[in-house]
């Protein structure tokens, strides 16, 4: 058919799925690519690194000679007041901080998606109720409440922290997703799905949600950074992860007094937080541009 001939000229030779297009556009953001590299290195180090250092997190060296040593080849980040290798501790702390960052974002996202999607799709009373609830949660000052909850709820696990942070992290996502659903439910392909006879559930999860992926992923990426800071703040205040489990926050807390005599105790976890969070932010920015819905036209 002459038509077939034309079609072959038109459609490109490789399947240009959504992710392929995103990747293509992301490659142009040098900063985002750089951040991916940095983050990969950091994550790799934190996850695998501790197995390769000669020290464990609590190994205390000689009480006199190994205490508060400046960074050297033997101890890359120096040692702390108990003679522990700071490098190993920072890596292990990274594990905890990253874990908290990712899982709290994930949990918050879950709640946010459900609240936002159903509020935006169904509208009416459900929307009003859910959004007013969201508003109330928004108006609560987070950090003080995090502190209060942390001291009130029994237990000292990392998961307690994840839960608490997630409890206060879902609202922004809910609002964003609700907004997207409000407009997407008017889209023609949503109407087409209805015309075929698809159920509301199917429309929400299979048709609309995948199209809200862009802001979700961007929000998640930026959220990891933000939550790492929350965790650090909590731990620094003494309400987060409890020693001896290291996290970037509580390492900082321990190091307070040493600012003058052993600044590396403060700089190393501090820089770790800074670099990681900035990298997540740059990545989020790059993703936001790359996943712009104008991708489709």
């Amino acid at each position, binding site marked *: 058919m*002459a038509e077939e001939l034309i079609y072959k000229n038109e459609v490109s030779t490789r399947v240009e799925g959504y992710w392929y297009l995103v990747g293509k556009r992301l490659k142009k953001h040098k900063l985002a690519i750089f951040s991916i590299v940095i983050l990969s290195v950091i994550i790799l180090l934190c996850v695998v690194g501790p197995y390769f250092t000669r020290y464990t997190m609590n190994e205390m060296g000689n009480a006199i000679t190994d205490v508060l040593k400046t960074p050297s080849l033997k101890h890359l980040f120096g040692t702390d007041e108990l003679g522990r290798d700071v490098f190993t501790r920072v890596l292990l702390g990274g594990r905890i901080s990253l874990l908290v960052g990712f899982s709290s974002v994930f949990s918050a996202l879950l709640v946010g998606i459900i609240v936002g999607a159903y509020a935006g799709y169904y509208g009416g009373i459900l929307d009003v109720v859910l959004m007013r609830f969201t508003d109330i949660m928004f108006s609560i000052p987070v950090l003080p409440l995090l502190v209060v909850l942390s001291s009130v709820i029994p237990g000292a696990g990392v998961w307690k922290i994840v839960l608490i942070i997630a409890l206060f992290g879902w609202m922004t996502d809910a609002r964003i997703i609700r907004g997207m659903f409000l407009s997407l439910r008017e889209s023609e392909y949503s109407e087409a799905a209805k015309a075929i006879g698809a159920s509301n559930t199917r429309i929400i999860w299979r048709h609309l949600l995948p199209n809200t992926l862009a802001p979700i992923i961007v929000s998640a990426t930026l959220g990891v950074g933000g939550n790492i800071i929350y965790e650090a703040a909590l731990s620094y205040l003494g309400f987060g992860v409890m020693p001896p489990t290291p996290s970037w926050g509580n390492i900082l807390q321990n190091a307070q007094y040493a600012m003058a005599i052993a600044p590396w105790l403060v700089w190393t976890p501090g820089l770790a937080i800074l670099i990681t969070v900035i990298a997540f932010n740059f990545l989020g920015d790059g993703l936001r541009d790359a996943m712009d819905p104008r991708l489709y036209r």
Partner: protein
Amino acid sequence: MEKNQILVDVKDLKTYFFTDDGVVEAVDGVSFTIKRGEVLGLVGESGCGKSVASLSIMRLIDKPGKIVGGEVIFKGEDLLKKTEEEIRKIRGSEIAMIFQEPMTSLNPVFTIGNQVIEAILLHQDLSEEKAKKRTIELLNLVGIPEPERRFNQYPHELSGGMRQRAMIAMAISCNPDLLISDEATTALDVTIQAQILELMKDLQKKIGMSVLFITHDLALVAEMANNIAVTYTGKIVEYSDARSVFKNPKHPYTYGLLRSVPSLLFEETKVELPAIEGMVPSPYHMPQGCHFSPRCPFATDICRREMPEIEELLAGHYVRCFHPVKVSKEAI
């Protein structure tokens, strides 16, 4: 103003877009002339370059587009060689343009009156009072009832047809020599479109301006234009006066369109239309040789290898084809 004096002479205009995915030759060697008082219809589908050509004339092409060649002789001078300052003086006063979507080309936060006055004050040395008077005159001229009241209204308070009339008022406010109408009636209802077309014909006679009438609608161009240039993928494929193009189409594309686009003139209905096969090629995958060859029922080897030049086949009738349609057709 003498009639038959050439107002616009576009010679071999080339405007290319340099995108990440490749170079798009949006306008690739387009030439036409418009005499004073004449209407030239520029017809084509998406991707034919008609809008880009008009924007090129107005020097409104921005990155990644660039005018890479040709001349646009307007009143004896090449517009492409003028400075930005000089062009700005010409835009709006000597050459005016109206667009498809009046809602987006009119500023929603200013009143209609305000916007027309702005057009006047930019190019003419009138007092505000005189300019206001002129604006009311113009609104009247374009058929807006109660112009004094409408003067103070915002675009969203007007209907589509009214907005388009306001746009036209702005465009003719300085008595332009050339009006470029880019799909100006496409978004309007058919009864409103009829009104606007009548208005444009009327104004054209009154003011004596030339019009570059850009559209994809063959029927509109039959009604409005003295001469017609049919464009396809950045090149003109047929160029002649309106009667010749409709009664005696020589390019297979023109011939195909006239037979396949439903019109009230077709005798038989509910039958299969003689459709043109295939589709407009993507600018990134332009076929070799004549761009229309993959779809052309008359195409031969040479068509697929080489691009034909535009030639004067009959007096004043130019065609770009190795096998111009032999049958002299009555427009169906």
